[in-house]
C-alpha cells in the first residue's frame, strides 16, 4: 500500500523546516527525533545568538517548533530512533523504537536531517591541549558562556583580557582526514569575537586563520564590523602549539603577512572546531543504504542543481547531514527536500492508482 506521508529524521532546523513545508502544502509529516526535545544541535549545544544576524536561538527555534506543533498534519515523535527500514520509494516500512517499544510506520518518502557533530578537539594534530588546559575551550564551550552573558576563564573564573580563536581546528586537514572547509566557523568566530568585545570591552581579541571565509554578506555583517568597530585582530597564521606559562597560556605561530614568528600570551584560547557527520547521520546512511562521501556525509547525487536527492530513490537529505552547511543552506535544502519528497509520493500513488 503506497503511503502519502513523509518521514523526516532529525528535529533540528532542517527537519523542522521540512516538516513545516510538507504540512503547509497539505501532506502528512512524521518527524522523528531521538532527543526528548526538538531544536537539534542549536538547542542541544546551547547556541546563544545565531550567525550572522545575531538573532536569539531560542526565539528562532521557538517559532519553527510553534509552526509544526500547531499543525495537525505533523506527527511529532520525540525520544524515538529508527531501527529498520524496508520497502521502496512510495512504500517504505520504517521501524521506530521508543523506550524499548517498536512500531512500524509506513511512509512514501524519507528526509534525512540528521545533522553534524562538532569536531572533537582531542583528535587535532597540532598541540592545543584541549583536554590538558582548562583555558583552552571550543566555539561550543564559548557559546554556552555567551548564552549566560558571563565570559570567564574556566580555570579561575577571572575575566579574560587576552583571547584568541584558532581557526580550522579539525577542518582542511589531510592528516585528520577532513579535507573540507567547515564553512561556518569563520563567521561564528567573528560573531563570538564581537560578543566578547561587547561583554569585555577592554579585551584584546585575536583570530588566527588560514583564509577568512566570509562569503556573501557575512563580509560586512561580521568581518568588517569585527575588525573596524570591535578592533578584533585578524592574523593570518595558524598556531602550532599552546603552552602553559604560569597562570597564562602562550600561543606560538607565525604572523605570516608580517613575516615574523610570534609568541603571544593569552588568557583564553578558543578552538574553532568544524563539522563532522553525526553518529545519527552515519547510522541512518548505513541503515538505508544511502551512499556516503569519503568523509561519511550523505552524498547528494544531483549536485550542483539538485542538492537533496540521494543514491536511494525516495530518500532525500537536508542540512548538515550532507556536509558542512550554514542555517540558510540547511533550511533551503529542507524546502527543496520537502518539495521533492511530495513529488515522489504523488507520483508513486498516481502510478498505483492507474494499476
Amino acid at each position, binding site marked *: 500500500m503506497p503511503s502519502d506521508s513523509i518521514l523526516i529524521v532529525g528535529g533540528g532546523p532542517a527537519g523542522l523546516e521540512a516538516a513545516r513545508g510538507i504540512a503547509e502544502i497539505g501532506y502528512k509529516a512524521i518527524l522523528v527525533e531521538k532527543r526528548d526535545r526538538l531544536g537539534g544541535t542549536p538547542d542541544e549545544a546551547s547556541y546563544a545568538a545565531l550567525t550572522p544576524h545575531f538573532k536569539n536561538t531560542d526565539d528562532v527555534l521557538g517559532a519553527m517548533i510553534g509552526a509544526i506543533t500547531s499543525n495537525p498534519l505533523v506527527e511529532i515523535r520525540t525520544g524515538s530512533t529508527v531501527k529498520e527500514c524496508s520497502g521502496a520509494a512510495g512504500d517504505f516500512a520504517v521501524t521506530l523504537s521508543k523506550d524499548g517499544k517498536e512500531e512500524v510506520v509506513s511512509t512514501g518518502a524519507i528526509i534525512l536531517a540528521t545533522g553534524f557533530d562538532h569536531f572533537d578537539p582531542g583528535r587535532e594534530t597540532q598541540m592545543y591541549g584541549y583536554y590538558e588546559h582548562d583555558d583552552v575551550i571550543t566555539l561550543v564551550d564559548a557559546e554556552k558562556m555567551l548564552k549566560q552573558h558571563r565570559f570567564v576563564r574556566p580555570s579561575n573564573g577571572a575575566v579574560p583580557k587576552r583571547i584568541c580563536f584558532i581557526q580550522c581546528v579539525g577542518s582542511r586537514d589531510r592528516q585528520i582526514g577532513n579535507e573540507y572547509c567547515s564553512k561556518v566557523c569563520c563567521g561564528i568566530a567573528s560573531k563570538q569575537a564581537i560578543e566578547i568585545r561587547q561583554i569585555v570591552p577592554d579585551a584584546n581579541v585575536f583570530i588566527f586563520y588560514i583564509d577568512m571565509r566570509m562569503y556573501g554578506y557575512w563580509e560586512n555583517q561580521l568581518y568588517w564590523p569585527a*575588525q573596524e568597530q570591535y578592533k578584533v585582530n585578524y592574523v*593570518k597564521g595558524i598556531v602550532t602549539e599552546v603552552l602553559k606559562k604560569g597562570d597564562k597560556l602562550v600561543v606560538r605561530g607565525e604572523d605570516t603577512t*608580517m613575516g615574523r614568528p*610570534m609568541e603571544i600570551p593569552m588568557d583564553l584560547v578558543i578552538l574553532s572546531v568544524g563539522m563532522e557527520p553525526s553518529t545519527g547521520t552515519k547510522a541512518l546512511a548505513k541503515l538505508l543504504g544511502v551512499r556516503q562521501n569519503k568523509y561519511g556525509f550523505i552524498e547528494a547525487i544531483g549536485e550542483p542543481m539538485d542538492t537533496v536527492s540521494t543514491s536511494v530513490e525516495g530518500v532525500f537529505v537536508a542540512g548538515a547531514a550532507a556536509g558542512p552547511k550554514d542555517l540558510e543552506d540547511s533550511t533551503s535544502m529542507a524546502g527543496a527536500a520537502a518539495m521533492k519528497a511530495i513529488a515522489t509520493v504523488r507520483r508513486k500513488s498516481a502510478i498505483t492508482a492507474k494499476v
Partner: protein
Amino acid sequence: MEQTRYTVRNKYSDVPYEVKEQLFREVKSDLRFTDYLYGCYECGICVAACPSARFYDFSPRRIAQAVAREDVELIYEQMNDDVWECSQCFSCNRCPRQNSPGGIITVLREVAVKHGLRSAKEALGAYGRVIYKIMSTGTQVSPDMLQPDAFPDWGPQVLDVSKNLDTWRKAIPPETLHTTETAWEIDDKTIIELYLIWHMTGVMNMIEKVDEGLYTILMDVMEEKLEEAGYSM
C-alpha cells in the same frame, strides 16, 4: 601595564613602552585617522601600487597592518625606520577597504616630527635650505640658488645665468619678478601673516624639535620683522 604583545623582536627596546604608546595615542586621536584606516585585508594592493615599494624595502601594507593591529612596538619602529620612504603620492588609496596608508603615514610623520624622533631629524636634514628659504621669505626656490656648484649636471649654462642674474631677471616683464633672493616680490604684510601663522599653529615648535640650528636662525629673522610690525615675541 599591558604585558607583552607580539614578542620575539623589539628593535627599540630601550624606549619605554609608555612613550611609544603615547605617540600612538596621538596618531589615533588625529581627526583624519578614522577616515584613513578602516580594517586591513592584508591583501597587498597598496604595495603593488606603491612606487617606493619597488625601490626600497618599504611596504604601505605593513604600516596599515601595524596600525590596525595597534602593535605599538612595531608602529614606533616604523615611525623611525619606514615612514620617510613614502613619496606621499597616494597611489595606495586604491584600497578595497578605502584605507589610505599614505594618509596614515602623513599622520605618523607629523607625530614623529612633533616629537623630534631621530628619523625625522635625519629625513628633514636635507631640506634645511629649502625650509629656511620658504619660512623666512615665503617663496621656496629663489633665482640666487641657481649656482654652478649646486647644479653641476646643468652644465656651463648655469654659470652664465648666475653671473648676470640681476640682468636676466630684469628682462622678465612683470616688475614683481625683478628679484634674485626671492622668487618674486614679497609684500611685508604677507610675510608678517606667514610668520604669525607659523608661530600660532605650532610649526615653529616642530622646527625646534627637528633642527635647533635652523630654528634659531629663523627666529632671529622673524623676530626683527615682527617687532618692526609691532608684535612682541
